[in-house]
């Protein structure tokens, strides 16, 4: 009994001190701080969008008289072919991109980490099957896999999330399994078994905390690529259905007017890039903070 308490106390101590260390390291990294600030701004804008705009009035309603206006003081990003303010639509679009990115990655994380952790812990045939399936999923180009899933299940925001999530599960499975393999034969796992902890308890309390940092880094970087994947599918007409202001879909419709109204293809793309760039900056910073050896 005392043994178990000690074990837990040890892990709590380890977790807290390492989190503090990570923050300390992260603070020193200018890029990571810029990324953190930018992504926070995007999140705040996305959350506040309904306070600034009315969805029906400002985002989707056509204003025939204000069609295709170049950027001006009134419409800083100009208006699109249906007379809608592009700035408003770009801000509202952050809601879709962030939601799809985060939910898809959460989906991938839950599926991937569960499978990976169990595969690493159990080993044997189950591990073989899971890892082979992982190989298969990695050899199908992720865009094509997502396209296949969406086209099979139909176009909707939820299906888009599932498709992108499914296509990014394999890396999480690998990370989780590798992390489990590292600690599986450690003595404190033996100790936990010896005091009669159940397998799922051991996985949750002793093994997963060891790979949390890697999973956080993976997740941060993956949200960025999930946002890009979602935009790609929407661009191909397989994502969030019209008239919703999804960035990829906006680029797709702006593309028809690329010759004379190129500003329409400029701003939604910039928004995607800003979002992904800040997530990459943050993710890189986190990785360096978690593994100072890699920092160069």
């Amino acid at each position, binding site marked *: 009994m005392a043994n178990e308490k000690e074990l837990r106390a040890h892990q709590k101590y380890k977790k807290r001190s390492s989190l503090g260390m990570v923050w300390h390291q992260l603070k020193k990294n200018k890029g990571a701080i810029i990324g953190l600030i930018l992504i926070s701004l995007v999140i705040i804008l996305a959350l506040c969008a309904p306070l600034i705009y009315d969805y029906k009035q400002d985002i989707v309603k056509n204003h025939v008289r204000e069609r295709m206006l170049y950027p001006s003081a009134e419409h800083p990003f100009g208006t699109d072919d249906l007379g809608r303010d592009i700035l408003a639509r770009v801000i509202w679009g952050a809601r879709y991109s962030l939601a799809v990115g985060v939910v898809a990655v959460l989906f991938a994380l839950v599926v991937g980490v569960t499978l990976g952790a169990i595969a690493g812990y159990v080993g044997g045939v189950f591990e073989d099957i899971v890892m082979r399936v992982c190989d298969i999923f990695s050899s199908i*180009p992720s865009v094509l896999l997502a396209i296949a899933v969406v086209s099979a299940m139909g176009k909707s925001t939820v299906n888009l999330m599932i498709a992108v999530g499914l296509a990014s599960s394999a890396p999480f499975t690998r990370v989780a399994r590798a992390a489990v393999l590292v600690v599986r034969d450690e003595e404190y796992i033996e100790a936990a078994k010896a005091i009669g902890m159940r397998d799922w308890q051991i996985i949750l309390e002793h093994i997963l905390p060891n790979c949390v940092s890697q999973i956080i880094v993976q997740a941060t970087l993956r949200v960025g690529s999930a946002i890009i994947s979602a935009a790609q599918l929407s661009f191909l007409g397989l994502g969030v259905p019209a008239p919703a202001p999804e960035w990829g879909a906006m680029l797709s419709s702006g593309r028809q007017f690329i010759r004379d109204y190129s500003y329409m293809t400029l701003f939604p793309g910039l928004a995607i890039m800003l979002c992904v760039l800040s997530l990459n900056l943050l993710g890189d910073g986190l990785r360096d903070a978690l593994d100072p050896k890699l920092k160069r």
Partner: protein
Amino acid sequence: MWRYILKRLLMLIPVLLAVAFVIYAIMNVAEGDPVYSVAGADATEEQLAALREEMGLNGSLIERYFRYIGNLLKGDLGVSYVSKQDVMKIYLQRLPNTLKLASMTMIFATLIALPLGIIAAVNQNSWIDTVSMVLALIGLSMPNFWLGLLLIILFSLKLGWFPSGGNEGFKSIILPAFTVGAGLAALLTRTTRSSMLDVIRQDYLRTARAKGVPEKTIIRKHALRNALIPIITIFGVQFSNVLGGSVLAETVFAWPGVGRLVVDAIDQRDIPTVTGALVMTTMLVTVVNLLIDIVYAFVDPRIKAKYSK
């Protein structure tokens, strides 16, 4: 060595069967029975059943899968719902264009990334290192199709240097290859840099310096050969992403490759074409990965020794 390659080739078979199964399963849980859309609303039950048999849609999923695999082994991917043409024939028509784009992409990415990554590593923390790392980060964060649109605006609409689409001559491949290659180049630059930094710290370079080997030879011969190993890995991992990226670039630049084929087929709910193209593309990725594993052995004698065991 040859035994290893043979073993790997044999191991490919179950993997490819599984790949085909996954794709076939995904594509065939599609909502709606394609028979209805082909036969029209007022078809009788008998007509539908006959059509189902004709299209190879009778029987359970497993039955149909085994029939599909049987045909696949004979090189038959079925017939397109839309054009009524042999899917394998359509695929093989498009494949050279996609391979052309993919190889241009990889050549282009290597030409940029390798020197940039090496210079950045050798001059660590200099301005050139900072600039190339910022460029790489931007390259990684840019959606490729948007980059493609920007390239069209600048290089074909404003400057008129390159065509904005189509497949006519060498000029028309430049923009699509750049579009797909930018992300790969960014990733390769980062990998090259970190891999070189890793190698530069190794003791054996100090041995080479103590021998009096000139610094340029040390980088070009001693360091690069070792740094290549992780760089080749990236090529293997990224080949599938290059094919994925070319789906977008093919759409933006109206490039008649496999990617466009898939996107168009999905629009038309042409399931045999989508399934066939996906299965074949995945096989291509798997085979390329095997080739890359073999290339390893020629760069690193330790891996060759492992293969030979």
